[in-house]
């Protein structure tokens, strides 16, 4: 190997990112796919709430797709994604044995040390990072309750990917779980004081949960979503309004204090 090639190789190894991660398992739930990738370097550093940038295999895709970590087991990283556009549809068609490039883990994590009671509120594909958080909280002995809301029967197929003991589901069309939104579940819950709220989902849901938590006197965290180009702080494409001004979802986020986001 020449000096130049070696330099490039060394440079390539200095990032917390992993090339050619093999797909070890795929489960499909309607338009949703739960992937498990062998990615030891990402798995070793990951924390719930963080995300990875995933290369879409094949020509014709320029930007990587940001996907939050759905699970981490040993050297395997789980992702839950929904086939929406051409890129996510290609990722949802990945088969066991194929490989993709991952960059990560990126972004801020859900603070959860010392939390004894947690309420996880998710909407649609935004539920994905809450599985990983539930796994970590449960392992640490916390009491975990989850409330997930879905638009309709198609969207609610994602619920099948989750394994959380106390999980309440709503759908706006009444096809799955309680008819209504996740706020209807929250209204019926008896939430102990000191419970920490973790929210991830569409902007109107974040706004509603923020107000609900304020009324209940609960503190918490929200993970936000935005269209993203670089995923690494350079492009300023993913900024959101917060009490601290415009902040980048990829760099200062995706996890923010629930009371500082301005959905």
């Amino acid at each position, binding site marked *: 190997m020449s000096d130049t*090639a070696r330099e490039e190789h060394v440079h390539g190894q200095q990032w*917390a990112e992993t090339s050619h991660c093999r797909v070890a398992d795929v489960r499909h739930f309607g338009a949703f796919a739960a992937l498990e990738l062998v990615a030891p370097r990402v798995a070793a550093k990951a924390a719930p709430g963080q995300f990875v940038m995933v290369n879409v295999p094949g020509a014709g895709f320029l*930007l990587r797709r940001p996907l939050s970590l759905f699970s981490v087991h040993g050297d395997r990283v789980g992702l839950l994604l929904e086939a929406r556009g051409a890129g996510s549809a290609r990722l949802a068609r990945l088969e066991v044995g194929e490989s993709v490039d991952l960059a990560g883990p990126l972004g801020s994590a859900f603070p959860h040390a010392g939390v004894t009671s947690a309420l996880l509120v998710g909407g649609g594909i935004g539920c994905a990072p809450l599985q990983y958080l539930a796994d970590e909280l449960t392992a640490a002995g916390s009491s975990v309750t989850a409330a997930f809301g879905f638009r309709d029967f198609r969207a609610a197929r994602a619920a099948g990917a989750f394994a959380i003991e106390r999980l309440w589901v709503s759908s706006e069309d009444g096809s799955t779980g309680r008819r209504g939104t996740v706020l209807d579940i929250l209204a019926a819950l008896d939430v102990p004081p000191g419970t920490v709220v973790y929210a991830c989902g569409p902007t109107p849901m974040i706004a509603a949960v923020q107000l609900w938590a304020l009324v209940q006197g609960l503190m918490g965290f929200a993970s936000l979503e935005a269209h993203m180009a670089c995923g690494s702080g*350079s492009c*300023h494409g*993913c900024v959101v309004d917060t009490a601290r001004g415009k902040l980048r979802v990829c760099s200062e986020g995706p996890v923010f204090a629930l009371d500082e986001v301005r959905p």
Partner: protein
Amino acid sequence: MTASLDLAQVSLGVELGPLHLEHPLMDASGTFDLLEYARRYEGDYFADFPYAAYVPKTVTADARTGNPGPRVTETPAGMINAIGLENPGVDAWIAALPAWAHLRQPVIVSVGGNEPGQYAAVVRAIEEYLAGAASGAAPAIEGYELNVSCPNVSGGLQIGADPAATAAVVGACRAETPRFLLAKLTPNVSDVTATARAAVDAGADGISLVNTFKAMVLDHDTLRPFLGNRTGGLCGPAIKPIALRMVAEVAQALPDVPLVGMGGIMSGLDALEFIACGATAVAVGAANFTGLEVPARIVAELRAELALRGLATPSAARGLALRG
């Protein structure tokens, strides 16, 4: 066909005006944040910095919050963005300089504004700071790139589309600094050589081109403009053939003026194409968004592409596309 060279026989250094660059590659302004990369790097990023010069995100006289979202999305063979020159303003920008003062490579500061006085105020503030700064308090700021071509703020694109307005900005800044001065031109004109000539006549030492192409993407559900700013700037591989043509036109019209070519460079071969069209140096933009290791890869590829063709230096390739 010339015989290939060994990689070690290729010397990548170039002279961009008075600047000596270790190789021809720099980042395109706004696509690469040095401190964000350093934060994610497990080694010493300042020791391993891959570009030969650093062009930070455009700085303006006053702080700008930028455009409402969404600001970016992918397009066929490219992407569109409308960030809107979000930046903290020149005073806060200067205050943050010590954090990266130990960068070894030369820095070319990208400057934005709505009228000549705003551009000149940024250059003046930086020059005043550098004149009084203690050794080690600032990186090696060796030049400026006047961004008269941002399509996503009111004013910027209009300046770059008008040779007289471009000349006014360049002239105002020329009066504030003896350092290397680049004018970054917009491709959204019918004759890019006219704005290039106006910039050089007003005192620019070199030309950067191209900035992004003003473009629009629709939301497929609502059939309304997708971006919060309605329009944005198109970049990526989709624009490379047009950018190559424009670089070649300016290189032919102004053969003695140093050019920094850019527009959809994803590989070392793409970089070599811009050099063959007359660029002395080249800038990598959207490719920075596709992987943290991309800059080092493109530098290594450029060396290999030159070696493959028996070209010992980038200068040996410069202008090859322009010959009769």
